[in-house]
């Protein structure tokens, strides 16, 4: 039942993504209620599916890579539903659907990612640590997507292509602000998530490699966010850096989890 709900959610995201792509092909942004409704529907289905999973295990549904990917996908949609409304940037909808749909799809098409794993009961701090960290990764993913759009738009403007080719995207100045604000928000949530990690009771297992990796990611984001805030870094470098750190995170996340578990590199 839970997997069916999550699969339906994935389909709704992919439908919204297809609609956004079609709209882009027509040189306009998918800004209407259809996109918002499809993503909202997918979000509700995903929440329901994750809730059922949590009910089965009694803990936050982040026990294997499938659940983690689904949770990140859910947090991307959550970000859109909140940030898209606050910043009034319809572009976020066009970015959210493929990102959330893609993450959910990867989890669904590899059954090996959804192997049941027994986990010790989680404390409140540990659940907050995991939940907030994954929400932060979703937000940072959205920032990375916005960075890609910024880089493409800025490149087209620098290459002096006609302005009509940029019809579907917001002004480059607005894109820069969205990239920075979303990355800043992601970093703040990550800070809170990692903060909870430090107050996790001693009985919980803390993986050393994962700790160092998390601190590295946090420091990298902290550095670029601060550099941009202090005007020591231009928007293009910031966009590349935001994208680079997120890609690094994506490429190493699974590996770090594996090393941590297989080699038992735990803090003494």
């Amino acid at each position: 039942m839970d997997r069916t709900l999550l699969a339906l959610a994935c389909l709704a995201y992919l439908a919204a993504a297809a609609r956004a792509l079609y709209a882009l092909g027509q040189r306009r942004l998918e800004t209407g209620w259809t996109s918002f409704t499809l993503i909202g529907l997918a979000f509700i289905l995903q929440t329901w599916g994750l809730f059922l999973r949590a009910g089965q295990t009694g803990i936050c549904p982040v026990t294997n890579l499938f659940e983690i990917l689904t949770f990140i996908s859910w947090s991307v949609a959550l970000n859109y539903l909140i940030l898209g409304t606050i910043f009034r940037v319809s572009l976020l909808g066009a970015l959210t659907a493929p990102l959330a749909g893609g993450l959910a799809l990867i989890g669904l098409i590899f059954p090996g990612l959804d192997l049941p794993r027994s986990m010790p009961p989680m404390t409140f701090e540990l659940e907050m640590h995991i939940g907030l960290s994954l929400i932060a990764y979703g937000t940072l993913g959205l920032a990375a997507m916005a960075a890609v759009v910024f880089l493409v738009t800025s490149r087209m403007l620098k290459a002096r292509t006609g302005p009509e080719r940029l019809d579907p995207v917001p002004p480059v100045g607005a894109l820069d602000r969205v990239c920075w604000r979303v990355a800043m928000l992601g970093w703040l949530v990550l800070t809170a998530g990692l903060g909870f990690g430090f107050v996790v009771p001693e009985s919980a297992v803390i993986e050393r490699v994962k700790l160092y990796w998390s601190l590295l990611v946090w420091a990298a984001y902290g550095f670029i966010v601060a550099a941009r805030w202090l005007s020591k870094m231009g928007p293009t470098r910031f966009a590349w850096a935001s994208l680079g750190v997120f890609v690094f995170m994506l490429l190493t996340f699974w590996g770090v989890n594996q090393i941590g578990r297989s080699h038992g590199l735990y803090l003494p």
Partner: protein
Amino acid sequence: MNLYCLGLSHQTATVEEREQVALNPAERTAALARLREALPEAEVVALSTCNRVEFFVAAEVGLHPVRAAVADALRAAEKPVACWERHEYIHVNGAAVHHTFAVAAGLQSMVIGETEIFGQIKSAYEEATAAGCCGRVLHRLFQTTFAAAKDARTHSAITRGSVSVGSVAVELAERIFGRLTDTTVMILGAGDTSERVLRTLVARQVKSVLVSNRSHDRAVELAATVGGEAHRWEDWNALLPEVDIIISSTAAPHHVLARDDVEPCMERRDFRPLFLIDLAVPRDIDPTAALVDAVYLYDIDDLQGIAQANLREREREIVRCRALLHKHEATFSHWFHKTFRPVDGGWTGPEPGSGESWRDREANL
């Protein structure tokens, strides 16, 4: 009943000739009255823009009396009738409808797809209606014309993309900043093109305009006309961090804005985008300034290149536009045939390319 369109345009007459026969509003009203005197039962609309002067007439008479009445109206307005007759074109019935639709859709304009002509035709029609010169036929013709032109504009890319340097610059500025109401524009030097670009930007209600010129008096003069502030030439560099758009068109033989001027100011302006428009030849702005993050530099060739590419794009849309207009022509033609019977050489007139013209047929009408 016949429909006539008699006129001259940028396609048949030079600007000097067009300005000789152009009619101001008072002259248009007088011409309408004169035409009604000559052809009491006729319906008449007179259009006069900088690119065309046209009379639309619906009457139960042949072409000859209509031509004579138009010539008489022009003579009464002290316009050179010989010049008019030398450059005049005549469209009758189907061809007149075809022409009216094409003009309203901007297909016959100097700048293909421009929309100003639509408003001008609308005003001419309203003027004629107010003067009691429009009846059943012209009401129907112009209402269908407006619907056809709107359809063509909506369902084709005929109006897409800017086709003048000024409007390309504004469109780019909007791609960079969004609404321009929070932007500050600075103009360096005061050439004709730069002034036009500045005025187009000012029309978008930019926050403020700074003007700097080697001749301070000229800067003060220009600033006064656009509601800006004049600054001495020696001071403009210090204003860079405040400025979002720079239009430069000085006569300097060297770069007046170097990359080294731009780079440090970007940090002071929190890397907000900076749009540089270099309209000078030789160029005023070091091309390597474009390599600085958040700086977007366009020179006159870039802007003209975009405008020309857009114009070519519009030209390619003409065929699609004509197909859209054709549907409305058919509707009008159907109504016309159901209601009236053309009194002269049929609805369609001479075949295009047949070598025959309405002038040739005139003798028979």
